[in-house]
């Protein structure tokens, strides 16, 4: 199971990343993350909503109403151009973190 802190830290990049794949809404995003992480990444109740709201406020995503068959209209989110740029920046940072971590794992294994 991935720790809460790490989940929280990566939420921004993950949400933007998922929305880059296509428009979505809260429950679908949670489902998608669960699938992608094999259930190892779990969002606690209500954790996602304030993040979505904040991202919308920052102009990285925008919401719209969408009517699906036989159900109530749902509020969908779509990534904006600004959001895409932010995602690129996030991606770069995570890559760097990943590179550092990789290097460190390498180091440990050599010493071992």
């Amino acid at each position: 199971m991935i720790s809460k802190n790490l989940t929280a830290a990566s939420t921004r990049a993950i949400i933007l990343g998922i929305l880059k794949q296509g428009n979505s809404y809260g429950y679908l995003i949670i489902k998608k993350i669960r699938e992608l992480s094999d259930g190892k990444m779990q969002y606690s109740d209500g954790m996602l909503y304030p993040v979505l709201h904040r991202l919308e406020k920052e102009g990285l995503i925008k919401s719209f109403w969408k009517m699906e068959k036989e159900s109530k209209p749902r509020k969908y989110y779509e990534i904006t151009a600004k959001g895409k740029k932010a995602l690129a920046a996030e991606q770069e940072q995570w890559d760097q973190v990943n590179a550092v971590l990789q290097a460190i794992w390498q180091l440990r294994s050599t010493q071992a």
Partner: protein
Amino acid sequence: MKKDNVNTPQPPQILLKFLRWFCDPKLVEDVEGDLTELHQTRAASSKRKADWMFARDVILLFRPGIIRNLQFSAPFIRVYMLFYHFKTALRLATRHKGYTLMNVSGLTVGLASCLLILMWVNDEISVDKFHEKSDRLYQVFRDMIQASGDIETTEAIPQPLELELKNSYPEVEHVCILGWEMELLFRSGDNTLYEKGRYASADFFQVFSFPFLAGDPATSLTDVHSVAISRRLAEKLFDDAWPEAVGKPIRINEGQEFKVTGVFENPPVTSSLDFDFILPAQEFIQRNPWVESWFNGGFRMYLTLKEDVDVNAVKTRIHQEVNKHTDYAADEPIYLQRFADHYLYSDFQQGVASGGRIQYVRILLVIAFFVLVIACINFMNLATARTSTRAREIGVKKVMGAQRASLRIQFFAESLLHAFVSMVLALLVVYLSLPYFNALTGKMLRFDFTDQKLWMGLMGITIVTGLLSGSYPALLLSSFKTISSLKGTGQQDLGATSMRHGLATFQFALSIFLISGTMVVAAQMDYIFNKDVGLDKRNVIMVPLEGDLFGKNVVYGTALKKIPEVKDVTFTSGNPLSFGSSTSEAKWEGKNPGDVVEINVLSVDSDFLQTLDIDLVTGEDFVDNFKTDSTRFLINEVLAGIMGFTDPVGKRLSVWGTDGVIHGVVRNFHMSSLYDPIQPLIIRFNPRSTGSAFIRIQGSAQDAIARIEAATRELNPAFPFRYSFLDHEYASRYEREKAVSSLVDIFAIVSIFLSCLGLLGLSSYSADQRSKEIGIRKVLGARVSGLILLLSRSYARLILVAFVFAAPVSYFYMQHWLNTFAYRTDLNAFYFVASGLLTFALGAFTVGLRSYQAATANPVKTLKEE
């Protein structure tokens, strides 16, 4: 757009409502959508299980970050807190009954006084404002520039100016003349009554707004023998048939018959013009052609300007109108004053409206403010004095997270609650005392509860009083430090104590100011009423010569002198309070032809000086022989001074075409208000011009009046007997001063009462605080007198400081006020020392009483309480 599908399972509505209630509105759409979708997915297997899971999710979402921001519920909390503050204030008020009683009674008295004064002031400032054209209605005045350079302003305007304004001034809409007030006998059938009214020209009812109930205001005064009467006179004359009064005949003064052409509504109480009939001025002018001269002023004159006319342009144009038509024989410029301003600004000094009743309005407004401030200070002082008892409460509240603002609101809520309760009681007090207040002031004040402005005013005063009273306690108490508050000690810091003492000193300074002012006003009134006016005004009865009495001076005089209670009788053209005629045309030896001196002229019959006990300074009295006396004049000392002769007796003097000599100089006597200096006067012997009998009586006044009435009725049976006392006439000149003086007295007493109430509160508190100290001192052998001194000393010092500040201010202000009188009492230190001593005595008594109680308390009781 939202459409539910009936086939899809729905989550429990109550849970949804709960979610919508607590969830942040910005998130609720996402949350609700997701939970509903999840519920639908779950319900596919089990609806019941899905509902339970939905409930679990909703409850888990009831957490910070999802719950709506507290800011959104702030108004609710604020309202609740306000309610809570009022509840606490109510509890405190009922717990400390004595303190509440003191506060509420003080504020009630203060507010009631303030309300009464404001009602009086409101009535004063609303006088004459009811006329529809009030904003463009002006009265014409004439400045008479004297040889000495003094300017005398008169309302008497040459009548031809009316026609000039009508013909040559397109800016003027209507203009009318109005005569002096007169009292005439009205007869309709057997109904006879004396009524007061005036002469006026045709446009009178166009200029002023006295609505007509019958007849046409535009034409009611066009016929010479017409009369417009008030509703009350119509009711008196015609009873229930008054609405049909128009066209009916009325006989006036048992002579000419006049036809009623209009019935107008009674002039309202806010009208300075009060009359029950208006006769056409033309009727008077026909009989008195002298008024048609540009050189004589016979009437008052009023005009309305057309809308949007520049009054200053008219003022400039009209300025020299009289001078132009008199070929600049004298310098008498014309001046326009807005009629609505005249009631308050009726005194003229050097041709400029300098004041009048507005001075009383200002004085009373200041008093109202003072009284309310004193009452508010009481509240502040008592509230801050009780700080230590409230300190723990404040400390605990602060520990519990109360903000300073919240504590401030609490104290304001307390003071507002007190102010509100006091206002309700004050309204009751005012309501009950209004009849007495009206009797005292001669007004007809009443509450009009349908008037929105009244409610807004009351609300405004309540809020201002509440905020003012609560301001200092709110600032001081909320600033306490939490730790020391919890200890309940150390609150009485020097700043708070000095502030409290400062406020108490200020209160006493105001009281000393008001008391000394009241004493000076009373002394001046006393001076006026008892001043030697130059003649003996006591035991003199005045009877107007009317009907068959007129022209029968000898017969009437002889009949009166037969009455044992009648000592002397004389006849004059007016009474010494209104001469009725004056001239600027008098000429004497050596007078500079260009000089203008306005001189009063009094026509008298025999025994004038003897009856009124007027001293002759030099020369001789008339010898009661018309042939000899008709060319002799007596003058007063003022005129003698203006003429500049060392001995004026024997010098030539010419008045109204009669050439004669000055036969004597009489001692000055007062003719008008003591505000004004004595005017120059010529007394001439002319029995035919007299209109009043002056009868000096002796012995029983009742018998004298009964016999005089019998003698008068015998000669003049058609007219009811009328008389008045000369000293009452003098006194009536100062009615407004008397009324205001009584008001000042009352409110000065109120202010000292309030100050003492405050002092009682402070000293009680101080005695309570020091009860243990007193107990220990007593146990150690202190005497009661020593303890009283200990407790009273600081307050005595406050009163002393107040005196030092108040006395000079009061002296300066009262000297300023006295200067408005031409004849005034001397201002001496007595008034100030006496007011200081009185305040000191009352203060000492109040504090002493409470201190005595404290000092005589059994120390066992005070010391065992721990």
